[in-house]
Structure formats: C-alpha cells, structure tokens
C-alpha cells in the first residue's frame, strides 16, 4: 500500500470548519503531552492561559492591547498578499511611521490634541506608505524581488530609529539610555475604561470592515484580486499593474505606519530603542492563519494576544521556563498552519496493483 498526496479539487464548507477545529484540538492535545512531560498538569496550564487572558477585565484588556497592533498590521500585509505582493517589511513600516509621528511631536507641536493626533496620523501614514511604495515601485517597474527589498528596508528603518533615539532625539535626562523624552499628553491617544486599551482600537475595528467591503464590493478590490491571481490576464483586461502595485504597497505601508503611531502614542508614550515587539513579523503569521480574510485577522490577532498574555502567566503560575512556553506557542501555530495543508491537499492510500487507476476502469466495464 502506498500513500499519495493530491490536490483537492473542491473544498467543502465542512472541511473549512472541520480542519481548523481538528488542528486546534490536535495542537492542544500534543501541547498537553508536552506540558505533561514538563511536569505540569495540561488542564491547569490551559486554564491558567485562559484565566489570565480572558478571565477578568484586566486580562481581557491586555489581550486587546496586544491584538490592536496585530490586527492593524495583519490587515496591512493581507492587502499586499492578496495581490501576491509579499510585503514582509511591515516591521520597518511600523518604525518609520513611529519616527514620523515623533518628528511631528518634536517639530510641529501645538496645544490642540485633535490637531496633534491628526498630524501624527497623517505623518505616520505617509512615511510608512512611502517606505513600502519604494519596494512596490521597484517590484512593478524593474521586477526587483520585493521580499528582499522590504526585508532589507526593515533594517534600514531599524537603524534610522536607532540613530534618532541614540543621537539627536535622545532625552538628556535619560543618562544615555536610548529613548526620547516622554510625549506630552496632547500627543497621546486617549485610553478607555481605565485600561491600556487606546484609540487604536477604533482603527482595529474600522480597518477590517473597510477592507472587507473594498475587496468584496468595489471595482478596485476586484482588480487587486485579479492581478493577484493572474497579472497577465489583468494586463490584457487593461488594468494598470504598476500603478496598482505601488498603490497597494503604499496603503499597506501606511496602515503599518499608522499601527506604529498608535502603539507609540497610545501605549509607549515615547520613542525607544527596540520599540516594536516584532509585530510586523507576527502580522505575517496572523494574515496567513486568517487566510487573508479581514474578519479572521481580527480573530487570529485576538488568539495571538491570548497566547502572548497567557504565556507570561504560565511562567508565573506554573513556573514554566520561557523556552518551554515558546515551544508550546510554536506547536500550536505549527498545527494550525499545518492543518491548512490538509485543506488544500488530501492523502489517499492506493494499493500497489491499482496504482494506475486507468487500468481498473476497463475491468469494471467487462462485468
């Protein structure tokens, strides 16, 4: 008996539900086995994760705080991925967005909070957008691989940020520690309900709705999808590839840049060395797990938030080392992403003698 892998010709809704659920169950089960061998009760550990991240208002609020930048950046990369343009530079776009917003605070300071926030918003969007559009233009015009350029632009952005926080923008009272002075309140996004949930929440709700609508119901959304699936056909249909790639990258980068501004102005309150916790990279996993669906991105970001917030608590409550929590998080992601494979392909066992199905058919006819 042999096993063969073949693509599924159609995908039923039952598979679409069954596979993620089964993947998650398998992930939790194997994670449980791992936890058992680490010497802790899997049930207690899972309960600790859920209690910490969802069990009370504080945990829930912190999970949302984590989900906000992930959702926004997830939407940003989703947009480019839909067009099969691989923007993996969201991290850098977050950085330049934050740098631009900080520049506004330093050089265009006014006492009006709405004016400040709008200026920071626009500056961050423009900076992130242009940063990404550079790679988009090079891709569309000269076929320069955007995976390489966006990745490399991350490091440039990172060093640009370091230049500012180590150099001209450093807080003189920080004793050499690389960070800007704290922002005045007029440059801070409002926070809600006495938690750390900030104004970015509004964008994290609006953006998925907006892009769901745009991709599904507008002509431009249709063009992007067609260009993603078949750029040649799109060209024959008179769609402008260059313009759309640059535009999509600009919007993608702008959203990432604004996510950076929200994190900066809503949560951190100052620009600092090592500013983003890798949201730009996690967003790629988020968008992928969500299969590029805007609403699923919100859900997956929230699940990521649970894993991140709950993971810390495992260290405290179950006294597990960080590395074993990272293994657990990795296992869960591995299974959920791996499940995707079974949605697209199926594994069938075939007997050696009927390996060639064509021979079997005539013998059936003879009867």
């Amino acid at each position: 008996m042999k096993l063969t892998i073949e693509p599924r010709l159609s995908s039923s809704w039952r598979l679409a539900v069954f596979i993620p659920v089964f993947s998650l169950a398998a992930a939790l089960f194997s994670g449980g086995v791992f936890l058992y061998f680490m010497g802790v009760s899997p049930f207690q550990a899972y309960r600790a994760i859920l209690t910490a991240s969802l069990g009370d208002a504080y945990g829930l609020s912190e999970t949302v705080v984590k989900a906000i930048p992930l959702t926004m950046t997830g939407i940003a990369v989703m947009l480019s991925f839909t067009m099969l343009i691989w923007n993996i530079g969201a991290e850098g776009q977050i950085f330049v967005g934050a740098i631009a917003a900080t520049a506004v605070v330093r050089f265009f300071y006014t006492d009006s909070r709405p004016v400040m926030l709008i200026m920071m918003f626009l500056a961050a969007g423009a900076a992130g957008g242009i940063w990404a559009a550079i790679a988009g233009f090079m891709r569309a015009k000269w076929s320069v691989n955007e995976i390489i350029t966006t990745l490399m632009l991350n490091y440039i952005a990172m060093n640009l940020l370091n230049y500012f926080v180590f150099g001209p923008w450093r807080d003189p009272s920080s004793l050499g520690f690389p960070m800007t002075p704290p922002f005045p309140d007029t440059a801070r996004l409002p926070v809600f309900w006495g938690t750390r949930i900030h104004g970015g929440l509004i964008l994290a709700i609006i953006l998925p709705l907006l892009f769901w609508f745009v991709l599904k119901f507008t002509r431009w959304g249709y063009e992007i999808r067609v260009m993603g699936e078949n750029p040649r056909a799109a060209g024959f249909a008179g769609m402008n590839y260059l313009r759309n790639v640059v535009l999509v990258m600009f919007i993608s980068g702008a959203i990432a840049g604004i996510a950076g501004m929200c994190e900066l102005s809503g949560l951190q309150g100052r620009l600092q060395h090592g500013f983003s916790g890798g949201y730009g990279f996690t967003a790629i996993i988020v968008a992928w797990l969500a299969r590029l669906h805007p609403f699923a991105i919100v859900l997956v970001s929230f699940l990521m938030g649970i894993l991140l917030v709950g993971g810390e608590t495992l260290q405290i409550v179950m006294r597990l080392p960080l590395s074993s929590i990272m293994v657990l998080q990795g296992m869960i992601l591995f299974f959920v992403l791996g499940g995707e494979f079974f949605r697209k392909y199926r594994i069938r066992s075939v007997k050696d003698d009927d390996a060639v199905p064509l021979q079997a058919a005539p013998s059936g006819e003879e009867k």
Partner: protein
Amino acid sequence: MKKITAILAAAFVFMFCGTVFAAFPPVPAEEINPGFVYIGPVGDGGYTFMHDKGRLFMEAEVPGVKSRFVESVPEGPDATRVMETLVRNGSKVIFANSFGHMDFVLETAKKFPEVIFMHCSGYKVAENVGTYFGRMYQARYLSGLVAGSMTKKNIIGYVGAYPIPEVVRGINAFTRGVRKVNPDAEVRVIWIFSWLDPGKEKEAAKALIDAGADVIGMHADTGAAPQAAEEAGVYVVGYNNDMSNYAPTKHLTAPIWNWGIVYRDTMKQVIAGTWKSEQIWPGLKEGMVDLAPFGKDVPDPVKKIVEEEKAKIISGSWDVFTGPVKDQQGVVKVPEGTTMTDGEMLSMSWFVEGVKGDIPK
C-alpha cells in the same frame, strides 16, 4: 553638557540622601511570593543567570519564601503587564533587574502602593520603590589590575553595552586598575547598544582583537565576548560570573555579582517590617561584588597586588575614585585628597585618562 551633568549629580545627591521614607508593615514569609522580572533568560550564563542564582540563594536562606520569575521581559510596555500580573497573582514584592524597566516599575508601583518594588540599577524612587545595585566599580578596578599586568601590546579592548553612567563608571574603574600597574596601556571601547546580544558582543570583541587588543574586558550579559577571545587566543576578563566555561584557557578573572545578599536582606526586612524605600549600594566589603577565581596564567605577584588593593578598598582607607583622577584630556576632575561622592559616581558621564573612545552625546 557639563551643566546637565552637574544638575544630574545634584539630583542624585538629593535622591540618594534627601528623602527618607517610612517603613512598611511586616509580611509573613509565606505570603510575600516575590516576583522577579528578568531582562534576559536565566540561561544567559551571565547577568540574569547570576540574578537567578541570587534568587535561589534567597530561597535557601529565608525559609518559607517561594518566589517566581518571568524571563526575557523587554524594557517596554510589556514590563508593566508582567509586573501587574505578578502582583495580581499574589506577589507582595517585585524585583526588576534592568535599568530600562525603571519607568514601568514606577508606573506599576503607583497603581499598587501596598506592594514593594525593588529596581536594580535605576535612580528613581518612590514610597514603595527602592533601588539596589552594587559597587561593581570596586571589583572592576581589581580586574583592571589583572588586565593591565597581562597585556603585552598595551591595548585592551572593552565591549560596552550602553553609554550610561553604570557602564562608564565600570570602564573608568577598570582603566584605573589597568593604569595603576601599567601607565602605558590604553582601553579601547566599542558600544554595542544592547545588554544582551551574543552576536553583537562577539563581533565587537573580534573587532577589538583585530584592532590589536590582546586583553578583552566586557560589560554585557552573556559569555559571547569571552568565547571570541578564546577563539582568537587572547586573554579576557569576564563579567557577572566566572566565565571560564566560555574561555577555559584565556579567562583571567571576572568581576562578579552576589545578588543573593540583597535578595536575602530585602526578604528579612519585609518579614520584620523594617523595609523602607532606600537606594542601597553595597560593595566588596559586604560581599555584593567580588572577583572570580584567577586563570592559571595569572602569576602570583599579580594576585598579590590584587589582594593588597582589595584590602585597601575593604578597609575604607581608599576607594577607586580617590583623587587625583584625570579625564581623557588630562584635566584633574578629582583633586588629590578627595574622593568622588556616590552621587558623582552614579551620574558619571566622562572617561578617565587612558580610555580611548567616546561617550555619544
């Protein structure tokens, strides 16, 4: 810049001995559940590893206390959540072990005035926030004596983390030791702008070796620089703990931390109800800092000098920054017969004579 330094120095003096806070009520040992917030993983083999060793020492010394820790907590908003989660899970005392946790410690401390926070290496205090650090400069000086004796080319490399007073003070003390035994030697500094980045630590050490250094000193969290030195066949002075594992044949010694002393004493104070917000800074005398065992290449006369200088510091008759101390330009910063105050040392932002490198402004 000088003016700012002077203001900072004044601020330090004020903070160091100006405010006196009231003592906290006692807490039974079983209810303290001290929570440790670590900048790195406990397996870093250096800085956080030594803090964790101190934590275990505390658990052994103070019966009934059961602690917990969170590893790799960045110096950002995540630190606030980690501390708040510790408090919500019953921690009555929080230790945060990195400079950059400072503002997040104060933010959380404000929210939980009944919880005691101890912040390592910072300078901001509150009613319920104390700081702790050690006079590592004393052990650094002793290690400098060894480095200065062992260099042949008179070039010593130094891998520096961030250009902040803690690191600058360490470089200065090390250089004072080097120049005491070898006035011709110079200490070259490379900043890596990170506490913990084995890649950068190693690259910086390699660059210094390529530039001619035949002894490497370091202020970073891991054993990567000693590894680079061992590979290149040059001597190295480790940091944090005995790093001879990373450089078995080339490790001369290392200035090391015994954090357990602070952790044990803090627990005892909290249990007795005598804890109050202070800035504690114990040194060689208290055993908070020390030197790791000497490598086999260190000759006896060098060991003898180190012992003599150590005795001098412990007796209190002399300290590392007792004048005359000159800066890089040869200007006398501390005249003969005077010693730098704690406030001046804590805000040190200039290099002494013999250091080659600069402090980014």
